[in-house]
C-alpha cells in the first residue's frame, strides 16, 4: 500500500531570543513527534487551539520550514531530503490555500496571473497555455473566464477564496493543504466554499490536509481527524465517531466548549 502522505515523528522546536546574555535561549516546542499517514483520495483534518502546532504541520508538509527531527514523505519522497530542483518539481503535487483571502492574493496582479503563477514557477509554458489553464481552473471553482482580467478587489471574500482554490488546482495537485480556509468567511458564504471543496474532492480525487479550529468544518470534509494538543496527537479517528465518543479529556473539553444553537426554553 503506498501512501500519499506519510508524516513520521515530526518534531519542530523554535529558539526564542535569549533572555539572559549567558543563559541558553528558551525554546518553543511546537511539535513533539507527530505521525500520521494519508491514503490517496482520503482527507485528514487537524484540529486544535492556537499554539497546538497545527500551522507548523502545514508549513512542514509544504516544505516551507525544516523539521528539527522526523520526516515528511509525499508519494514516497522525503521532501526535506530532496535537492532544491527536485523539491521544486515535487511541489506540483501539493498546493496550499490560506486563511485570509484578502492577504493571500496580490492586489496588483490580474486574476489570470495570480491563478497561473504556480505553472510559471514549475515549467516553461506559453502565456496562451497558462491563460487557458487558468480559465479552466476558474471554471472548476464556479467563476467565469471573463473574470481573468479583473483584479482581486473586484471580488467578495468568498469569490477571492474561490480564486485561491483555483490557483491551488492549476497544477492538478494530489494534496491541498488548507489552513483555516473558511474561518474568515460569513456563514452563508462558508457553506458555498465548503460545498465547492467537497465537489472538487469527489470530482478530482483531491485529498485535503485541513487545518481548522472548527470541528464541524472538519466533520464535513474529512475521513479522519487528529486532535492536536501541545504538539502531540492526543486522539484520532473518524470524525463522526470521535465527536460522539471522545475519550481524551482535551477532546471532550473542546467539544463541550462549542456553543450550541439551542437557547433556554421560552419562559
Amino acid at each position, binding site marked *: 500500500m503506498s501512501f500519499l502522505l506519510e508524516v513520521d515523528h515530526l518534531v519542530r522546536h523554535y529558539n526564542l531570543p535569549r533572555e539572559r546574555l549567558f543563559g541558553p535561549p528558551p525554546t518553543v516546542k511546537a511539535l513533539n513527534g507527530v505521525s500520521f499517514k494519508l491514503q490517496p483520495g482520503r482527507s485528514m483534518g487537524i484540529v486544535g*487551539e*492556537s499554539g497546538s502546532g497545527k500551522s507548523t504541520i502545514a508549513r512542514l508538509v509544504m516544505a516551507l520550514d525544516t523539521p528539527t527531527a522526523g520526516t515528511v514523505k509525499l508519494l514516497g519522497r522525503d521532501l526535506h531530503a530532496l535537492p532544491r530542483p527536485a523539491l521544486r518539481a515535487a511541489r506540483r503535487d501539493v498546493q496550499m490555500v490560506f486563511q485570509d483571502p484578502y492577504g493571500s492574493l496580490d492586489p496588483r496582479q490580474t486574476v489570470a496571473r495570480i491563478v497561473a503563477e504556480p505553472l510559471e514557477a514549475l515549467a516553461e509554458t506559453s502565456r496562451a497555455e497558462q491563460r487557458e489553464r487558468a480559465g479552466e481552473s476558474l471554471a472548476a471553482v464556479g467563476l467565469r473566464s471573463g473574470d481573468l482580467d479583473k483584479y482581486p478587489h473586484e471580488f*467578495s*471574500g*468568498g*469569490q477571492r477564496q474561490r480564486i485561491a482554490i483555483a490557483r491551488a488546482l492549476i497544477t492538478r495537485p494530489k494534496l491541498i493543504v488548507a489552513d483555516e480556509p473558511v474561518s474568515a468567511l*460569513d*456563514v*452563508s*458564504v*462558508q*457553506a*458555498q466554499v*465548503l*460545498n465547492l471543496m*467537497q465537489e472538487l474532492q469527489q470530482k478530482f480525487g483531491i485529498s485535503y490536509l485541513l487545518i481548522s*479550529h*472548527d*470541528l*464541524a*468544518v472538519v*466533520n*464535513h470534509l474529512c*475521513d479522519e481527524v487528529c486532535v492536536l494538543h501541545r504538539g502531540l496527537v492526543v486522539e484520532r479517528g473518524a*470524525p*463522526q465517531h470521535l*465527536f*460522539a465518543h471522545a475519550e481524551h479529556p482535551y477532546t471532550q*473539553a*473542546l*467539544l*463541550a*466548549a*462549542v*456553543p*450550541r*444553537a*439551542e*437557547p*433556554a*426554553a*421560552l*419562559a
Partner: protein
Amino acid sequence: MPLLEVDDLHVQLQTQRGPAEAVRGIGFTLERGETLGIVGESGCGKSITVQSLMGLLPSTAQVKGSIRFDGTELVGLSERAMCEIRGNRIGMIFQEPMTALNPVHTIARQVGEPLRLHRGMARADARKEVLALLERVGIPDAASRLDAYPHQFSGGQRQRIGIAMALACGPDLLIADEPTTALDVTIQKQILELIQGLVEERGMALILISHDLGVIAQNVSKMLVMYGGSVVESGPTAAVFAERAHPYTQGLFAARPALGAPRGQKLATIRGSVPDLIDLPSGCPFAGRCRFTIDDCHATRPPPTPMPHGHAVRCIRLGEVIAEGVLE
C-alpha cells in the same frame, strides 16, 4: 423609562463610490439588566449600529432618527457631552484584544484611564481600583502584573483586560462587538461566562454582537437578525430560534455545518451574495436571494408582522414561508 430606546435610526456613510446606507430605520428598546444579541453577516450594519450608540462613527457619517439613553438624546449630542457618557455610562469590549490595547502603556495605566478621567481619581486610588478589577476578571497574580505591558499577556488575558477597562466606571450598558471571534473555543467559553457573570452581578444591560448563532443562543434573552442594514426578524431568543420565520434566518441556520452529521451531505446555501450597501434594493433587502420572492417584495420595505411572544418578522410572504415549515 427604558435604559435605551433606538427609534428609526438611519446611518449613511460616505464612501469613495458614493453614500452607503449602512443602517436603514432600525429600532429597539433595552431595559436595565436586559441582554440583547445582534446577529448578521459582514456588512449588515450591526457594528455601525453600536458605533452610533458610542458616538464612534466617522465624522462624515450622517445619522438620522433617535437614540435615547437614560433620557438623553444621543443623536446630535456634542462631542464634549458624548465624552461624559462614552466609557463612563456605556462601556465597550472590542473584537481584537491585540489591537484594542495600547502597546506602549502599562495595563494599570490603561485600565485606570477611565477612572482618572471620569471619576477624577488620584493615581494611587485608581491603581487600587484597577487591582480589584483585574482580580475580578480573573487575571492570575494581578498585583504583580499591574506594570506589565499588553504583549506580556495571552489573547484571552488581553480580552479580560479589555473587559476590566470597559467595566471600570460601572457602566449601565455594556456593548460587546464580537468579543470572542479572535479566541479559541475553550477561551471563548470562559470569556462569555465572565461577561455573563458580570452582567448579572452588576445589573448592566448588554448588547452582544456575533455572527455565531450558538453564542447568541446561550448568552442573550432577546435578539435582532440584521440583513442589508435592516432588522428582518426580532424577538425573544427562544421564540426566534424555535420559529425561524424569516427566509434569511432560515438560510443562516441551514448553512451551518453540524457536528456529527454524516459525510457527503451538501450544506444548504443561500444563493447570491450580500447586497451592496451603496445601491440597496428599494424593497425587501433579501428579495434578490429569496426563494419566496414575488414582485411585491421588490416594491416596498415589508412592515413588521407580529407573532406570538413579542416576536416580529419583516416578510410579506410569511404565510407561504411558514406553510413550508422550518428548514432543517
